[in-house]
């Protein structure tokens, strides 16, 4: 009788712990996903300023700059929700990343632009922006993996239904070009 009671209490306590653990991980995952949005928004806001900063000296590279602006506007417009959201967002953002890196390569070809000193700042801002997005995705993927693993592992999987836990998607690279090994320029440290 007593043994049964103790077993029940222990099982109940464990269930509470496992349930709360899952809920906490679930919310962390949602939060990490929103963090990616925050960083993407920051990039969208930053791009017009960046383009303005180099516009004067790069007047005859209009096509490159316009490609950046266009990709940016495209990315801002994506307002999907649901399971397709992640795919659409990442496609638009990858296009923007491509346009930005092309712009950076073009900037390298203008020594007078480099000489003004602004360009160091520009490069720093750009690489920081890209890093922020990459790290936000990394955090999301790490948290989501932890969440997915937890809800599928044996004892916790028993309460997964109770906590309405379901596996979430990880953020993947859609663009085949981004999968390729990047070209590294060793001239700049």
């Amino acid at each position, binding site marked *: 009788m007593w043994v049964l009671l103790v077993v029940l209490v222990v099982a109940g306590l464990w269930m509470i712990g496992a349930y709360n653990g899952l809920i906490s991980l679930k919310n*962390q995952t949602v939060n*990490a996903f929103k*963090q990616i949005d925050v*960083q993407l928004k920051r990039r969208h806001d930053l791009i017009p300023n960046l383009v303005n900063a180099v516009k004067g000296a790069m007047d005859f590279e209009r096509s490159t700059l316009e490609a950046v602006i266009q990709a940016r506007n495209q990315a801002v417009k994506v307002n999907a929700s649901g399971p397709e959201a992640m795919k659409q967002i990442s496609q638009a953002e990858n296009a923007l990343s491509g346009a930005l890196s092309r712009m950076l390569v073009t900037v390298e070809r203008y020594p007078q632009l480099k000489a003004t000193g602004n360009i*160091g*700042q520009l490069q*720093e*801002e750009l*690489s*920081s922006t890209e*890093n*922020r997005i990459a*790290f*936000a995705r*990394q*955090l999301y993927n*790490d*948290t989501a993996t932890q969440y997915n693993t937890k809800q599928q592992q044996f004892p916790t999987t028993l309460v997964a239904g109770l906590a309405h836990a379901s596996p979430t998607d990880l953020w993947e690279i859609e663009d085949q070009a981004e999968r390729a090994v990047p070209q*590294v320029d*060793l001239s700049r*440290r």
Partner: protein
Amino acid sequence: MIGFVLFFAWLGFGADIIWALEGQHPFPWLGIAVTGLAIILARYIYKTGPEKVLWATGAQELVTPQTDSERQFANVVDEMAIAAGVARPRTWIIPDDDPNAFATGHDPSDSHVAVTRGLLRLCTRDELQAVIAHELGHVKNLDVRLMTTLAALVGAILLVREGVGRMMRAGSFPVRGGGGGGGAGRGKSKNAGPLLAILLALWVISWLVAPLVSQLLTLAVSRRREYLADAMSAQFTRNPLALASALEKIETAAAPTAAIKRGCAHLCIVDPLGHRLTNREGWLADRFATHPPMSMRISRLKGMGYAQLKKEGGSFTSSALA
């Protein structure tokens, strides 16, 4: 923290018990007073610890970055805060040419990261990132609270012991206070002879070894946590080799960091005192160094780096190892 208060309670009430066994002693006011003092002291230390540490190193807060390297530092801190999933720490710069860095604060939502100018000048962006990630690893593990508080507590224990020792020598602390008691008190004292002796010995020993033990504790905790923070840095940046090369650079430049005093040594990424102890292994170094041997840290990080390269199927190239 609780241990600190309990320790003081033991010292205070222990004195009361000894006193009571010696003769009549109506009320344990000494124990209450000492415990109360310890609680107030602990609370004060906890509240002002990070400020004290930053003030002691002469760090200046970086609010609006002016130069390129300051801007890079601010950006890197932003990035690593995102990677670690913590609130952005406040950034401080120490005007010192020797490369070093430390973190302090109470919890992940209220933390500070400080680096020296030397570090900003010496490290590449990737290396700076790895160093900041190491510090944020400390923040995320709540090491900062523990280490900052420990730093202050060790100091407080030393201070209090000194003060009480002076009082004892001056004779105002009645260790043998039962002289004026009646026959009853004397009889009690005789009965409690062995117990009294043991208690008294224990009590005196605790006074004597307290600072040493607390210091050793700090060190033991600190060394394990350095390895952990190194691993967290690798997790955040996915680039353990960057931290390895940063540590190598800092190590070769290791002159003592003048701005960082002894009490804060265990907060830093490398031992700022330029102790050769950090470079050795063995029993003595294992117990008394604030940081694990640099060669061990670097080789562990390189091990992580190679494992990562192997997993990704990349081939070893000289650029990856450099």
